[in-house]
């Protein structure tokens, strides 16, 4: 037997309690790993490396529309190969099912997003039919839509000129994604912007977003700077960002993600401190006579303190490392599952912070019981006082 063996044997004195405690530590560090990586996604600065498209919206908010007159100006920016635009329609299917419906210019959108795959004749039909709509394959499969059907969709924002919020569209195509990650996103509907622009009651010639397809080798950061500089101090100031940041900005509408993450982690670790701290305190309380016997045999106060602290460290370390490893695994699975769209990467820095947290937590939960063990007076402890 070794001193380590003695610590391990003591940990398994009450197997169920130890296993439950380790499980709670695993859960806490699993959450820690995932939430920290989530936080790092939202707190990271703009990354233009590898960007092939940029998104331009009104600087104030994406709900403020920009004029279509910007199109030629944007097309004139060096490095921009094609400009597409999109308008949020606020589609509702049947009673109250929200549909991700966007009004787009079919040809421009097709050129900017070759990732959407659909027969060319259907793209042409989409461009040539005013009331046309195309739907993603997932959505079409879900509702059993077939090409040629007339699909009634209401808008919870835009009434027609006659005041009705009910619109009807001709389904002329069903698009799919070019690969697994894009196929997962085929839950959207696109309608013809020209028709929407003419028929809606609220104004004309405006759109929410511009998608700038970059020319090969274009400097994304420079294009961003040029575009936003071009409209600075105009009534329609813009904010241009990468597609990835644009997608994240929707989630950021929920609130300060960093703050939310910090509060969740605070609650998790506070609860964990109570759970593990209580386990350690109970474990020491139960074996006061045994600790006194250790001292009787010649183990110093420091050694006894070391034994108790080692138990706390072992509990937290085993649970913490398993939790972080699971978070790394899950993060990689999420990243793979979303085709890299959601990079839940539990990186080295998160591991370093995690290990530091494990050490701090071990001290926090182990130190008081360990000090109690250290202070035990042999004579009193053996006499049960």
């Amino acid at each position, binding site marked *: *037997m070794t001193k380590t063996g003695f610590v391990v*044997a*003591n940990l398994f004195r009450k197997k169920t309690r130890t296993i439950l405690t380790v499980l709670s530590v695993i859960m806490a560090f699993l959450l820690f790993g995932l939430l920290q990586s989530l936080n790092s996604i939202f707190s990271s600065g703009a990354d233009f490396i590898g960007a092939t498209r940029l998104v331009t919206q009104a600087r104030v908010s994406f709900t403020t529309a920009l004029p279509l007159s910007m199109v030629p100006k944007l097309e004139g920016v060096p490095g921009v190969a094609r400009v597409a635009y999109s308008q949020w329609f606020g589609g509702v299917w049947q009673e109250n099912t929200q549909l991700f419906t966007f009004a787009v210019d079919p040809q421009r959108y097709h050129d900017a997003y070759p990732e959407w795959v659909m027969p060319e004749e259907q793209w042409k039909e989409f461009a040539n039919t005013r009331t046309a709509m195309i739907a993603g394959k997932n959505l079409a499969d879900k509702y059993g839509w077939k090409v040629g059907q007339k699909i009634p969709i209401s808008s919870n924002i835009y009434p027609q000129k006659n005041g009705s919020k009910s619109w009807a569209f001709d389904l002329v195509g069903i698009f799919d994604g070019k690969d697994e990650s894009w196929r997962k996103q085929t839950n959207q509907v696109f309608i013809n912007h020209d028709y929407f622009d003419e028929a809606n009651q609220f104004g004309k010639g405006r759109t929410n977003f511009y998608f700038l397809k970059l020319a090969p080798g274009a400097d994304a950061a420079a294009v961003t700077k040029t575009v936003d500089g071009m409209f600075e101090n105009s009534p329609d100031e813009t904010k241009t960002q990468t597609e990835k940041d644009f997608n994240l900005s929707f989630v950021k509408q929920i609130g300060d993600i960093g703050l939310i993450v910090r509060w969740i982690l605070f609650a998790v670790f506070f609860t964990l401190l109570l759970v593990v701290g209580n386990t350690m305190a109970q474990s020491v309380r139960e074996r006061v006579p045994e600790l006194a016997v250790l001292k009787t*045999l*010649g183990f*110093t106060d*420091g050694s006894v303190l070391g034994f108790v602290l080692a138990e706390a460290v072992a509990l937290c370390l085993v649970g913490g490392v398993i939790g972080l490893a699971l978070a790394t695994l899950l993060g990689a699975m999420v990243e793979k599952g979303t085709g890299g769209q959601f990079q839940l990467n539990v990186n080295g820095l998160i591991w370093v912070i995690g290990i530091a947290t494990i050490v701090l937590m071990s001290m926090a939960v182990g130190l008081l019981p360990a000090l109690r063990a250290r202070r035990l007076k042999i004579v009193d402890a053996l006499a049960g006082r």
Partner: protein
Amino acid sequence: MSESMVQIRSVTKSYERGKQKVEVLHGLSLEIPKGDFVALMGPSGSGKTTLLNLIGGLDQPTSGEISVGGSRIDQLSSGQLANWRAHHVGFVFQFYNLMPVLTAEANVELPLLLTRLSAAQRKKNVAVALQVVGLSDRARHKPRELSGGQEQRVAIARALVSDPQLLVCDEPTGDLDRKTADEILGLLQVLNREHGKTIVMVTHDPKAAEFARRTLHLEKGQLLEQVAA
């Protein structure tokens, strides 16, 4: 048996009980030669266990001198005293005080973790200690799988394994039936007579005291008389 193992001179011991100061031992002096087997008897509260704790270095006197095996243990710090206990004294308790999570052999090995012995040497010493107490065949059993008598034998093996010259036993048969108690006392007698261990044993049981070479009676913190066995 002329050389002293334990020399106690004018020892007093007081405890604080709340706001009260209680003096348990009043200027007690005692000498125990090497190789002696002493039974300490007396009514509850007479100071037997307090005296045993002082001899075993578990507690420090309020005043007076205590020498054990030539070391002035009343002058040692807490850390030095722990180190001294590890090498010079073995303890046997009434309720055995074994570690329930460890096997018999691991319990016996525990004091050896404080030495520089190799794992192989520790294993050898443990085997010898268990053989001396007649429990070689129960080495892999945990305390809950042993009878009271067997548990106490393991505790004696643990006390012996680092080969101390002094064994202090606090009511070692207090939790055992007569037959088992006699076996344990017989074992202590063998350790005293054949292995030369000096034994100081606290007991309430006059029959147990008969196994000792002599009996000391304590009353109200003072020695009354010595009775040779």
